[in-house]
């Protein structure tokens, strides 16, 4: 990794949040055809369908291109777009077009870094699926590509910005207010488990052991599907959507849901520019080298003593039952915003709001202001996911340096965190 990549990824955005009015955007009403932003979507599986919906339902957006290595999906997406949209098998051919403003990267995570960087270097803004990348090192390359091209990048999770925070029964904002005003004290412990409202989908996204190789379907370009991943014989379970259960492509339920759940917590704790220093997992061990398995608990500790406790509630003892979501020396918050002491729930109304964040990607694109969840803070929550999975796989307590973004005194963990890609693919 270059020094610039590291420094770019470490620098928190100094840009003040900027909420921009429609007048400043130069469009007071519904945009005309020429004002519309041209979108292209790579990856048309389950999440890809969601992204097609984002684009097709946005009056400011126009879907001009779709891409997938499975031709039947391309055909269906072109039909769904209803004209003016062309399909591609190879994302590079799609990027050759001159008219794309925004590329959605909705492929499996082993492709995320590469396709993000291709799009950014081609002068496009990027709307990326989570996890941001498949390894820690890849995230730094993406951040550097955003920087060197002056592009806008958003990660597709939004709970730090708006919306009920999954099963917690509250939005993130009141929690942020309590924490930033010191009403819970410091350091804080946050529990993210089914008991506090967060289903980790650990079982759902495990892989299958002992699958025999199958013939590759004629419809699928399997080599292009694998791309930078090492070759493994084809089985249908390896590809969408169950690719999440195989380490070469993703990292199970933890990687699927991790940034949804952990990014807002990172924001609440004001940890957007740092990472934990100790990580320890309780899980079946050894894990399989190819197939993602279950896990029980992961504890991550920051240098200042703040702790994240992730519990799958699908393996091993459950220690988060009846415990608060967030707990400090002065107060606790449970699901549905039940607080101890009770008056915290009333006090929060009077507390000043957090700094505003840009929560509309169209605003980011038009004004060039950083999106609220971008390549820098997004990479920090991306790292949380990978720290947890590295601890599960190695089966030992890991020590991480938030500055260098490397493990301390653990060559193996660092080899998991930074892996070469199968040529001809590689990161810039």
């Amino acid at each position, binding site marked *: 990794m*270059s*020094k*610039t990549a590291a420094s770019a990824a470490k*620098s928190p955005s*100094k*840009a*003040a949040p*900027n909420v921009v009015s429609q007048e*400043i955007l130069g469009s007071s009403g519904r945009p005309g055809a020429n004002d519309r932003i041209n979108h292209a979507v790579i990856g048309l599986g389950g999440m890809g369908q969601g992204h097609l919906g984002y684009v097709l339902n946005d009056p400011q957006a126009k879907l001009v291109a779709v891409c997938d290595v499975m031709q039947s999906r391309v055909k269906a997406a072109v039909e769904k777009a209803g004209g003016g949209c062309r399909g591609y098998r190879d994302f590079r*051919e799609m*990027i*050759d*077009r*001159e008219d794309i403003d925004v590329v959605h990267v909705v492929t499996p995570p082993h492709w995320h870094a590469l396709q993000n*960087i*291709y*799009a950014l*270097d*081609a002068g496009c803004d990027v709307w990326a699926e989570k996890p941001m990348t498949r390894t820690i090192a890849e995230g730094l390359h993406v951040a550097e*590509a955003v*920087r*060197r*091209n*002056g*592009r806008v990048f958003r990660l597709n999770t939004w709970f730090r910005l708006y919306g009920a925070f999954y099963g917690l029964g509250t939005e993130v904002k009141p929690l942020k207010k309590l924490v930033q005003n010191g009403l819970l004290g410091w350091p804080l412990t946050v529990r993210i488990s089914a008991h506090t409202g967060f289903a980790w989908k650990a079982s759902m996204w495990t892989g299958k*052991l*002992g699958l*025999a*190789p199958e013939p590759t379907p004629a419809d699928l370009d399997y080599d292009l599907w694998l791309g930078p991943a*090492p*070759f*493994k*014989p084809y089985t249908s379970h390896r590809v969408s959507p169950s690719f999440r259960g195989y380490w070469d492509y993703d990292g199970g339920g933890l990687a699927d849901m991790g940034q949804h759940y952990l990014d807002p917590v990172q924001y609440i704790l004001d940890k957007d520019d740092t990472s934990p220093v100790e990580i320890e997992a309780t899980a*079946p*061990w*050894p*894990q*399989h*080298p190819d197939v993602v398995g*279950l896990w029980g608990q992961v504890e991550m500790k920051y240098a200042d003593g703040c702790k994240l406790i992730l519990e799958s509630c699908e393996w091993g003892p459950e220690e988060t039952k009846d415990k608060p979501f967030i707990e400090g020396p002065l107060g606790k918050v449970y699901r549905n915003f039940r607080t101890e002491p009770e008056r915290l729930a009333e006090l929060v109304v009077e507390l000043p709001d957090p700094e505003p964040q840009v929560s509309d990607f169209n605003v980011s694109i038009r*004004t*060039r*202001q950083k999106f609220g969840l971008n390549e820098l803070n997004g990479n920090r929550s991306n790292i949380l996911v990978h720290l947890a999975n590295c601890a599960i796989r*190695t*089966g*030992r307590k890991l020590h991480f340096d938030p500055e260098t973004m490397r493990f301390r*005194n*653990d*060559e*193996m963990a660092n*080899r*998991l965190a930074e*892996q*070469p890609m*199968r*040529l*001809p*693919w*590689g990161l*810039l």
Partner: protein
Amino acid sequence: MDDTFVVIAEGNTHMTNETMKDQTAGGGRGQGRGRGQGGGRRRRSGAAGAGVQRDGAMTVAAKLVWADAKAGAAAASQLLTGATGAVRELVANLHASNDEATVQASFALEAMVMASSAPGQGNRRACLASALAKSLGEAADDVARNVLIRALQLIGGDDEVPALAKCLELEGAFDTALLALRQIGTEKAYLAIKNSLARAGGRRRALLAAALGDFDDPCCHPDIPGLVAGALAKADPADAPMLWAALARLGHAGVAPALAKALKGTAKSRAAVARGCLSLLARNCRSEDDAAIAIAELFKAEPDSVSSLMALQDNMEEDEDSVPYLLGLMTSDSKVMRETVAGILMQGYVGSSVTEKVISFYLQEGDGGQTQAGMELRQTIIRLLGQRGDQVARPFLLSLLHDREAAIRKSALAAIECLLGPLDRRVLAATILEQ
């Protein structure tokens, strides 16, 4: 010998006296005999040797499928105690069919790999890696061999390079062996790839040359850029991007003209790679002269692009002499460029004299806000002045609260808040209303 397990200790040259003693404790030949339990469809067992273990490796492996961590750790320790024989037995059970025995052997190998790689386990790691390397020739098929190579990618070192280098000659193991050698990343790994490159032709030559881009210390390997450049000259055009990337990583300025040509070409995806490579090259060049060549090629191809500016910026001292140039770029038609420059001036170029230059620029440019572009420029500068955090801008920003344009007053208010911290909005609002 079917269903009989015996582990040999020979070849465990890295084992300590203590582990050797553990391995042989209480064990004469025959004590390790026992029925395999849950070993699945075992194909063959390990050979006899000096040391003997109570359980067969596959018997242990059968207990490792999603095992409890404590049991897993104990089993890993047991397997590592007789690593050579254990590996031999496990490898005999790896097969592309991915049957039950393969699954169990895979778990066992992973346990050994992870446990031996823990800090302070250097001897065990070396012993296991040696055993894995020796077993590469015994793998039943490419899939099995690649499982072993992948393990060596994680724990391998110089001693395993020769065995991995041999795998570069095998069609079905080439990709994974190359990955492993790149991850090992030592001088010896480099030499193995280089030697293979000397014999390779066609696409394989391009792939091997591209891999050399990972060995980016020109002091140790001064011949690498030449090798990669040579491969690029003969490569299929489709393979050029990976070789460009390798040369960019190596900081080889000689590739800059080819990149600039690709940047001006019609294929936007290739231009994207070329742009990224030129940016990387400008950062990785070992001398200022080489960096200047890369940046000059970028500017020649794309004089007005953000990537050109950023490459220049990465190689430029943040001195005041550059400020007028940067401010000039703020009149660009491209909003991306304007905002990038604002970002540069916000994050770097500290000092009140820079702030004063920005204020002067505001007063000279922006055509008094008569056009939308002028108005946008003024607003961008106002925001920049707030975000720079230099109190020298304060009187100027306060004066803008009297501007005739509401949008300017609004921007000034936001900048003052940014500069001074949260103010009483009502007081400021009243000031504005008085205008």
